[in-house]
């Protein structure tokens, strides 16, 4: 990957395993759920990188682990030089001023017992960036106006607002300390269709003004297409394809990416013939065996895919793909013997 500079965020081999034990009959069954199983990801200052995949593929876990809201099992998360995964709690807390997160559900993301003004100015208080009550109120008002709400909304409580307005409040809180990196965890998927575009525009607007980098987590490729310069596609805890958005959308190389793109509704009926249907259910992250994770649903899977796991390999046009037959999958007539 040829980046003009050192990326702001550089994730290497990030892994998050959950240990779950459940009762099966009389036995306790201990299982390891490999929610995130060694991912690499770079985000340059001021850029937007999309992280997409089906629900359950570990993309939200990845986002939370990057911010160390969850403790990583392995791997490193370099944020402007310091490794978030290894930093002591106290130093990490100071660094949190430069990071933010916007959640999917604007309902549960806001404390129902705090006024909106208190909510959006909380990051400033947490880092001692505001003096008195007055200054705090002024900053809260300014933040609310910045996200398209009224300053006098500060004295109200979250339950008085609509979903879209609440998401604006969540965004105002995330940008309060003018962070360098904001993780957007499906910021629009819980919202009404009519409001989604407004929120996307607001996010773009904020990036123009304050210049944060976004890691945009989504399950909907069409959203990412317009918002992101680069995209990483995740399947069952690993990244299967990564590269410039335009290149991936123009010619997806991994069969999973192709299937994902095919699932985006297309308005033109004459183009529907090209769809490659995705078959079968995604295996859970717990029930995993050797080989390629996608092979159980892959239209072009062969013996080799069951034996080895394909590594994420660099391709010509600044992208990486984890598929032995990445070239073959592209363009060539697909061998459709799904199993």
């Amino acid at each position, binding site marked *: 990957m040829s980046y003009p500079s050192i990326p702001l965020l550089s994730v290497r081999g990030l892994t998050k395993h959950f240990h779950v034990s459940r009762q099966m009959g009389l036995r306790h069954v201990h299982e390891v759920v490999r929610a995130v199983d060694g991912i690499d990801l770079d985000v340059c200052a001021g850029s937007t990188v999309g992280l997409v995949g089906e629900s359950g593929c570990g993309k939200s876990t990845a986002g*939370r682990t990057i*911010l160390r*809201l969850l403790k990583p099992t392995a791997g490193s998360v370099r944020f402007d030089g310091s490794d978030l995964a290894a930093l002591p709690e106290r130093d990490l*807390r*100071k*660094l*949190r*001023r430069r*990071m*933010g*997160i916007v*959640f999917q*559900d604007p309902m*549960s*993301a*806001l*404390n*129902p*017992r*705090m*006024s909106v003004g208190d909510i959006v100015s*909380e*990051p400033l208080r*947490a*880092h001692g960036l505001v003096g008195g009550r007055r200054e705090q109120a002024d900053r809260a008002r300014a933040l609310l106006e910045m996200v398209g709400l009224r300053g*006098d909304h500060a*004295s*109200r*409580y979250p*339950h*008085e607002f609509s979903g879209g307005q609440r998401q604006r409040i*969540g965004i105002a*809180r995330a940008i309060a*300390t003018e962070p360098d990196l904001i993780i957007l965890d499906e910021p629009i998927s819980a919202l009404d269709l009519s409001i989604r575009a407004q929120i996307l525009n607001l996010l773009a607007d904020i990036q123009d003004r304050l210049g944060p980098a976004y890691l945009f987590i989504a399950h909907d490729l069409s959203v990412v297409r317009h918002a992101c310069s680069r995209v990483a596609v995740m399947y069952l805890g690993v990244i299967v394809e990564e590269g410039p958005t335009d290149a991936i959308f123009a010619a997806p190389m991994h069969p999973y990416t192709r299937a994902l793109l095919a699932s985006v509704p297309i308005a033109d009926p004459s183009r529907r013939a090209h769809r490659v249907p995705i078959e079968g259910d995604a295996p859970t992250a717990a029930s995993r065996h050797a080989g390629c994770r996608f092979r159980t649903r892959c239209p072009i899977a062969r013996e080799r895919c069951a034996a080895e796991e394909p590594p994420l390999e660099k391709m010509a046009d600044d992208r990486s793909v984890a598929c032995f037959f990445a070239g073959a999958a592209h363009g060539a007539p697909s061998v459709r013997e799904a199993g």
Partner: protein
Amino acid sequence: MTADAMHAHSARERSAVQRLLRNPAAVVSASVIAAMVIGAALAPWLAGYSYDAVDRANVLSGPMAGHLLGTDNQGQDIWARLLFGARVSLAIGIIVEAIEVIIGVSLGLLAAYRGGLWDTLLMRVTDAMFAFPDLLFAILLVGILRPTSPFAGFLTVFVALALVNWPSMARIVRGQALALREKEFVEAARAIGVPDRQIILRHLLPNLLSPILVAATVDIANVVLAEATLSFLGIGIQPPYPSWGRMISDSLPYLRSAPMLLVYPAAALAMLVLSFNFLGDALRDALDPRLRR
């Protein structure tokens, strides 16, 4: 949306109070409790007698001039003893509950937020406490501490009841706090870099107030009953200070000749306990978030 730039918080609290006022059971219960609190507070003035004053001319009398509810076997005024007894019940109920809330809430929050060893430790201790009969434990404590002065006697009952009752509060708080901890606004606070102490005080605790208030109100009833039981068994509040439990046990020999000796304190006790139970239920309904607009 114009003039009502009013505080939404107080608006919501107000609507909870309004819901409470629309519930007849709540209004009656609250009135009973209020009347008993006033009666207890003004006991020396309302009673007409001291709690240990003896009228030897009138023993076991029915209601008469000078003795509103009659006298007991020692010629003590029943009305006076009921009023002073209310002091004991209410003081024990409220003070023990306060101690319990302080211990239960801090330990419950600690266990839920810190998890790990703290959580395991708390849960095993509460398990052990639940497995042992409450009253027996309180009796044991009183037996071990053996108070010598009347004041020490009060104190022992307070301590014994608080020690017996805090685990249920800790469990409630822990359970609610665990559920809250998973909410994204707590995660958001951590992501922002809010210190743990602030997260507990500003995010968890305010959202726990309703369940704590409800549980505490219902629990006061249990504490009042437990004190009455201890006093009934003769190991609670010591004579000459009156307690309803003691009055009930003192009345037993005269059950046939003077049944009202039993009825008055038993009725007072039942009314107070029922009132706290009803009020607790009504609070639960009024504070139910599903009923908020």
